[in-house]
């Protein structure tokens, strides 16, 4: 148990880095406020928050997986296959609620498969999920014939386009999912076990954590959150595109790493990831409003990933003051 507690104090509860990120985001808002009159407007902020809600929800699942020492490349394909299955089943006359449940079940099975491949068959996470990702993308093309599926019931678009109390529903869903998972990761036994599994699996095992079970669970969670995001996405477009989610895995990993999640597991938290998503997207939004070419945006995203991973590596090898200060705090 002692080990687990150490992991907890190391991983879940230090907000120094998140403050730096928030200050960075604030500085960007100040800069953009001066540079462009349409950036800091309720309209723009709500537009951006609405469209990042899916990314944020997938990123939350990815964060949980990475904290547990895993990696999930298949999230984008799950995002695509779930609404496609729901739409096709509905198109064939199935009750839509039933179709959705069936599609979510498929997502859960995909998560289970990922989890078993990695926990039981001992696949490298990146390879195991690469395999499911590739196979799934083909399955999507087969079942959709490569064409977008648009057989959805009337009113389906309300999920993404509707508002409650003036707030777009996707934003509310994003906030709810964030709070729920922030709570799970910091305040439940499961959350602590996830940190333990990623931080030091052997020690966690000795301490009585069923790490295989935790590993499988996080992949199921990731798949289900990706499925949920896929449903919101298809509601936004009123169509399920076979290409949906092509870049999602890359985007959410970047956001999670930027948010302080350690690529080797055991460290990270949900608020950090959400801030990571906000930074990535508000910066790209700012670039768009300033008329900066899309090529530069990719260079920017690549650089962010480089800096975040580099920082993580440095932090792990103890090359930064932050680490020392945290040690002092922990000792204190």
């Amino acid at each position, binding site marked *: 148990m002692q080990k687990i507690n150490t992991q907890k104090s190391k991983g879940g509860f230090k*907000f120094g880095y998140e*403050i730096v990120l*928030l*200050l960075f985001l*604030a*500085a960007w*808002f*100040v800069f953009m*406020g*001066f540079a462009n*009159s*349409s*950036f*800091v*407007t309720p*309209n*723009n902020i709500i*537009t951006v928050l609405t*469209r990042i809600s899916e990314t944020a929800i997938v990123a939350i699942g990815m964060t949980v997986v990475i904290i547990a020492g895993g990696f999930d490349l298949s999230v984008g394909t799950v995002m695509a296959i779930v609404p496609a299955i729901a739409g096709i089943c509905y198109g064939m006359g199935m009750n839509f609620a039933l179709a959705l449940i069936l599609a979510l079940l498929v997502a859960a099975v995909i998560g289970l498969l990922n989890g078993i491949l990695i926990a039981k068959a001992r696949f490298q996470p990146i390879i195991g999920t690469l395999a499911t990702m590739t196979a799934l993308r083909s399955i999507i093309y087969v079942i959709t014939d490569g064409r*977008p599926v*648009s057989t959805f019931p009337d009113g389906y*678009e309300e999920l993404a*386009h509707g508002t409650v109390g003036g707030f777009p529903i996707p934003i509310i869903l994003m906030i709810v999912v964030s709070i729920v998972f922030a709570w799970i990761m910091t305040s439940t036994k499961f959350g602590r076990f996830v940190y333990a599994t990623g931080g030091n699996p052997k020690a966690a095992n000795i301490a009585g954590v069923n790490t295989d079970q935790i590993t499988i669970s996080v992949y199921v969670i990731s798949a289900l959150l990706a499925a949920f995001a896929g449903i919101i*996405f298809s509601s*936004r*477009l*009123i*169509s399920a*595109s076979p*290409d*949906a989610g*092509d*870049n999602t895995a890359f985007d959410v990993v970047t956001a999670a790493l930027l948010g302080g999640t350690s690529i080797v597991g055991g460290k990270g938290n949900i608020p950090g990831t959400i801030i990571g998503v906000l930074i990535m997207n508000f910066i*790209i*939004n700012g670039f*768009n*409003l300033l*008329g900066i*070419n*899309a*090529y530069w945006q*990719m260079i920017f995203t690549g650089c962010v990933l480089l800096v975040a991973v580099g920082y993580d590596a440095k932090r792990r090898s103890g090359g930064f003051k932050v680490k020392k200060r945290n040690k002092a*705090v922990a000792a*204190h």
Partner: protein
Amino acid sequence: MKKVKVFAILALVAVMVFAMFGCSSEAPAESSTPAESSQTAEETQTGSDGEPWKIGIVVKQMGAPYFDYAAEGSKKAAEEMGAEIISYTGPSSEDVNQEITFIEDLITQGADAILVSTADSTAIIPTINKAIEAGVAVFTFDIDAPDSDRLFCITAGDAVESGTAIGESIVEQTGGEGQVALLTGGLGSDTLNQRLDAIEAVLADYPDIEIVATEACDDDFEKCVSQVENLIQTYPDIKAFAGVSTVNPPAAAMAIESAGKTGEIISLGIGLPSQCSEYVDSGTIPELILWDPGVMGYDAAAAAINYLNDGSLPQDGQNFGEYGGEIIVPEGTTVGYIPSIIFTKDNIHDYEF
């Protein structure tokens, strides 16, 4: 440590407040610095001179020369008609979600018109409709989203017009006599079938031209090559092959050259410069029918500017000037087709798509 945290949060709040404040006081300040432009903008909402209309271009893929030419054409139209292209952008690989992001941000930016070539005609619909609702004039080009509220689509390859152009090309290149074979992509395509009909309609006036065969290759390059090889065997006197799908002319040219018939048999039809330029240089393809994406971009921008100026949409036969040409609008539709042009040895290397 607690103090540090409190301080950090206070600092953050201060920055946020400053950001909001800075922005709200910024808005009027900005319109006074570049005074002439921003203020006249307010007047031109109803008037016509002064501040140019702001047009954004969103394509399905950045870096494709085809769209770069289109954007160049749009810029040319904007310059001539006193509008401004405020952005030309698109995803690095086809991704409708990113396209949506760009369109949303153009609405925020206050674009007056957006020209869209979409990667997904269905998924883009809600976003196009949202832009229209926000008062932005949305025109599609190249690839249409016919079920959306977009105002008009400028595209290319009207089946009858391009088929007629191929037919005329055959007549000119063969001197109005000899055996020819027609090549098509797939027999199930309406566009390709209409093109074939248009060719036959032109050739009907030239009794000395004999159509010996019409072969479909299902848009398979290798299959087309072997079909042409067989036809060369079967009809030793054949003078020309004419293809209505972009696969056909380069495949026919390859078969002709490998049969050692360079200079004796020619290949004609619709083709992409990038796939055909070597055969154009060697003379196997004396000329190629296609459209200039620059003209498409030019006409789309011109149509948008006209709409912003007086609310008019393109009419059949409307002339967009020396570069833009005359467009064809089939009756009862909101789709305009730009005219085909002829590529030869002299101009094919100006195009890389």
